[in-house]
């Protein structure tokens, strides 16, 4: 067989074999990968909207998705906003739970962050940061309390606590949250949220 023909034949065969092998592997693993992705979101929604039995996706844009948490009767009981924004070092992805009227926060969950270990990374810490985000008044922009306080009682209704030594990470989270609450408020006002029965994806 002439060399150039052989080269083409070999390359094509290798390519085809690889392609078909990968197609099989791809199809076999596709479903599980989808399920894994869904599970992360569903677990987050259950955490941020207490009492959620099922969820639906109400809006989707790049780095900004709104989910609705529904109780066993199917009534919408809260929103879970999955949003990404810039942090101190890298991207922060979080989910914020609010009530239907967008007046109170329920809970904040940090999904992904790459902040400075030991400092900014404390945004994932329950006692130092996350617990201060529960039940905040978000009908107006939330603000950061500086310097940090020890107990939640010392905070005003629309204040959250700073992490000592990680002001910028705290401020980044704040900015992401305020922007997304405002954005959701706009969406609701313009009537752009789907009332559909899609499952959360």
């Amino acid at each position: 067989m002439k060399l150039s023909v052989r080269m083409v034949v070999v390359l094509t065969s290798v390519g085809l074999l690889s392609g078909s092998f990968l197609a099989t592997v791809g199809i076999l693993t596709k479903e599980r990968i989808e399920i894994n992705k869904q599970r992360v979101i569903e677990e987050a929604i259950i955490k941020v909207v207490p009492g959620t039995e099922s969820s639906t996706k109400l809006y989707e844009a790049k780095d900004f998705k709104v989910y609705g948490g529904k109780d066993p009767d199917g009534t919408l009981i809260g929103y879970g906003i999955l949003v990404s924004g810039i942090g101190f070092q890298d991207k922060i992805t979080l989910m914020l739970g609010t009530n239907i009227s967008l007046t109170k926060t329920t809970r904040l969950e940090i999904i992904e962050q790459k902040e400075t270990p030991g400092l900014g990374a404390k945004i994932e810490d329950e006692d130092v940061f996350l617990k201060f985000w529960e039940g905040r008044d978000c009908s107006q922009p939330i603000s950061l309390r500086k310097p940090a306080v020890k107990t939640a009682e010392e905070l005003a209704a629309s204040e959250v606590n700073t992490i000592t030594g990680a002001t910028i990470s705290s401020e980044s989270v704040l900015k992401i949250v305020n922007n997304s609450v405002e954005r959701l408020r706009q969406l609701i006002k313009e009537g752009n949220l789907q009332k559909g029965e899609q499952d959360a994806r």
Partner: protein
Amino acid sequence: MELVAIFISAILVNNFVLYYFLGICPFLGVSKKIDSAVSMGLAVTFVMTITAVVSWAINNWILIPYGLDYLKIVSFILVIASLVQLVEMFIRKVSPPLYQALGIYLPLITTNCAIMGLALLAALREYGFTEAVVFGIGSGLGFTLAIILMAGIREQLDLADVPEPLKGAGISLIVAGIMALAFMGFIGMIK
């Protein structure tokens, strides 16, 4: 503003070499002299920019629409290998002395994690076309910056009294560590 953030972040804050650990092999191998460092850096930047464009096109026009996500790794690396081959032929024709200077390092750009890393990160972050291009240029320049800085330091190190076991890769890595620390000063530039 978003594009500027991507650009600055790729060069300084999330420097490909000092933060993402991409491109270490050429970083250690070609950084002995400033001249070759500059050439390598520019060649890599050039390949990275084109790779950003082509991989974006393949991902968004073929892979995603037809659900062929599992072919991403294979197609990206083949694109990169072909691009490097083309660049190599181009340089050989246009500037033989440059070709001689870069020697073995040109084909090694194929296995340079920085290029593949660029394509993968741009796809992961779902960048649009302009964002991908800016990211490609920015990360290439970041790599170039790191490699030139390293070459400058190593030219000085050649004259210093480095303990025998640390000569070469050992001391280069330690220097890289200090550089990485220094670059941490850029964190928080983007808000």
